[in-house]
């Protein structure tokens, strides 16, 4: 990290803080705008002269969204899908990544497996969706939350293996070897030694996948249909295309759908940054 020392000139300092301030405004303004629009009265949203700060705050749009649109139901649906998807990929991914990092898999199998993981991460996810649709259709899993969570493995599983592999490789293997000498089995080692040490890695993988599932739109749009199972993305997407200019309600729904991820971003900042350090390794 570079420290701004005494050598930095005043002009440079001013330039630096100006750019910084500009960046912060550009980044935060749309979020601010979403928030204020959601509490503005209809008249202040649609006006020729912009209203930067609403004169009165109304919860009318939230009432509309929560009570009339039953938005909470969709938030719960989205949470169920995301949690199931994250759990499946975390469990299967952690075992696979551990095997790749530590266990004597035949070199060819290991490298081709890894190649596949990277390949799947790279290919356009939309490309697989037709047969996936036909498979889930045959299994009666179309239009169910479980079916969508399974489909999400196309996104989340390669990502999990990839991220976790980095974490496993960064972990010194001495402790495991010591435990091996003591005669503990692999699973005991995993449970008592490896997983506790890799916990931050598991957490950041889970979080990144959760964010991905929470905001996913294309698969949800294709796989879900009845209102009982829709996720927030599909509901808001429908809202935008059908009732384009009910901005107040739209922004209220958008903000509500953002809160779960936003709330938890403050706690997990450092985990996310750490996993991006892993990505590039």
């Amino acid at each position, binding site marked *: 990290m570079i420290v701004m020392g005494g050598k930095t000139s005043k002009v440079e300092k001013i330039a630096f803080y100006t750019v910084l301030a500009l960046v912060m405004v550009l980044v935060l303004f749309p979020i601010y705008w979403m928030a204020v629009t959601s509490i503005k009265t209809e008249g202040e949203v649609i006006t020729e002269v912009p209203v930067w700060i609403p004169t009165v705050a109304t919860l009318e749009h939230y009432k509309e969204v929560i009570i009339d649109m039953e938005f909470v139901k969709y938030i719960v649906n989205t949470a169920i899908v995301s949690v199931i998807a994250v759990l499946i990929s975390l469990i299967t991914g952690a075992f696979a990544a551990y095997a790749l990092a530590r266990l004597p898999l035949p070199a060819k199998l290991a490298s081709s497996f890894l190649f596949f993981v990277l390949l799947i991460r790279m290919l356009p996810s939309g490309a697989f969706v037709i047969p996936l649709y036909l498979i889930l259709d045959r299994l009666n899993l179309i239009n*169910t939350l*479980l079916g969508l969570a399974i489909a999400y493995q196309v996104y989340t599983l390669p990502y999990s293996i990839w991220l976790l592999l980095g974490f496993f490789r960064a972990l010194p293997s001495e402790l495991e070897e010591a435990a091996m000498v003591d005669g503990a089995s692999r*699973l005991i080692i995993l449970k008592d030694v490896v997983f506790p040490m890799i916990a931050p890695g598991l957490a950041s993988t889970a979080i990144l996948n959760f964010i991905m599932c929470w905001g996913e739109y294309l698969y949800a749009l294709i796989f879900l249909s*009845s209102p009982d199972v829709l996720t927030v993305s599909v509901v808001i997407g*429908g809202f935008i*295309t*059908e*009732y384009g200019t009910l901005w107040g309600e739209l922004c209220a729904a958008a903000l509500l759908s953002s809160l779960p991820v936003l709330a938890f971003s403050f706690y997990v900042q450092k985990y996310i940054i750490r996993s991006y350090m892993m990505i590039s390794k």
Partner: protein
Amino acid sequence: MYSTRGIGKKLSLLLLLVMVTGFIAPHLALSKGPVTITIAMAAGYHVDALKAILKYWEKEHPDIKVRILAFGYHDLYEKIVIDMREGRGSYDVIEIDDPWMPEFCAAGWLTNIDELAKKVGITINYSDFVDTALWVGRCPYKTGAQYALPECGNVELMAYRVDLFKKYGLPCPPKTWSEVLKAAEIISKHEPGIYGTVMRGLRGNPIVSNFLPVFWAFGARIIDERGVPRVNSSEAVEALKIWLALAKYSPPGMSTFSSDQVKAYLYEGKAAIATEVWPGWIGQLDNPEVSKVVGKVDICVPPGEKTHPSPMIGVWLFGIPHSSKHKVEALKFVVFATSAEMQKIKALATGYPPTRKSVYLDPEVVKKYRWYPIQLKALMTSRPRPRVPVWAEIESILGLYLSKALIGEMSPQQALNAANAEILEVLKEAGIYKGG
């Protein structure tokens, strides 16, 4: 190795748990109690109107519960199609936009309402329905048996500022599209801050719906009797030219406009003519709380040009899928919801357009909506979109090229030629094309 098995057991237990909840949850709602019929319909004012009559239904049929599932337009189509194709029977009543009918008929997905009604001894009073609305619910069109009952008498209308028209001595209502163009020109020239027209230009269904009345008024056709596409005929090109001229008087950003923008400009008094409005948009025009043009806007049948006026019909119908497990209850509901009595309640409560003549002429209703006799006239002279199962594709092609002509990327002739060539391909592949 025993420990590996332990983990496997836990894992499979977890998976089992997840799957069981996944499978059971959707079925819980259908378990016991009185019969529940499920209605799949378009979200928005359709649902609002239906909700207005639910309490009467509950009083009359306490044993038949109604569950409404509301979808966006495209979602609704996709959901009901897949459900009927797979014979799942998730829906007992479906709300059908009239262009979908040929496809549903061809696939044989719907229940013959005449037959079912006869079998269970329910009589339906057909004579009160507007003919054009009934026809689109028949398989085949106009001549066949009734497979769906019209419940929303949507028809394309035109709205214009009668105060401004009178001020400049313009004919009220305009009889031809050329007169409309002239009026737009004059008003936008003399009235600062008021646009001559406001039109829907969004690619897809909106731009096509906006264009078709002009297209038809010039005597152009989309497909002829032998399944040959005719959208690049000289009449069609002429129609597109005048439509583009009208669009020049529309507010900037028209290529992204859908119903919301048209309504906004109309209600704020910032547009003199909305060349295309639907009954659902104009119900509040005389409500001073939301409208700045109370009493200043007149509704008329869209004009003709080379031929008589041709408003587009956009009726919605209730049909009963073959796969429904509660057909009789569904029929009872459909008959109830389309009865004159209930249509009147829907119209009064939400301005939902009726499909029965008696409701249009009901004094109480006309008092609230002064343009209803005109709306009835429009509906009676209305024209349906081509009765082919591939209309969605044709509309998508036409919508794209109209949009390209609108933004000036193609000349009218080029755009319509390109559209015609692509539509021809679709018709050939669907086996509709029989020309040479």
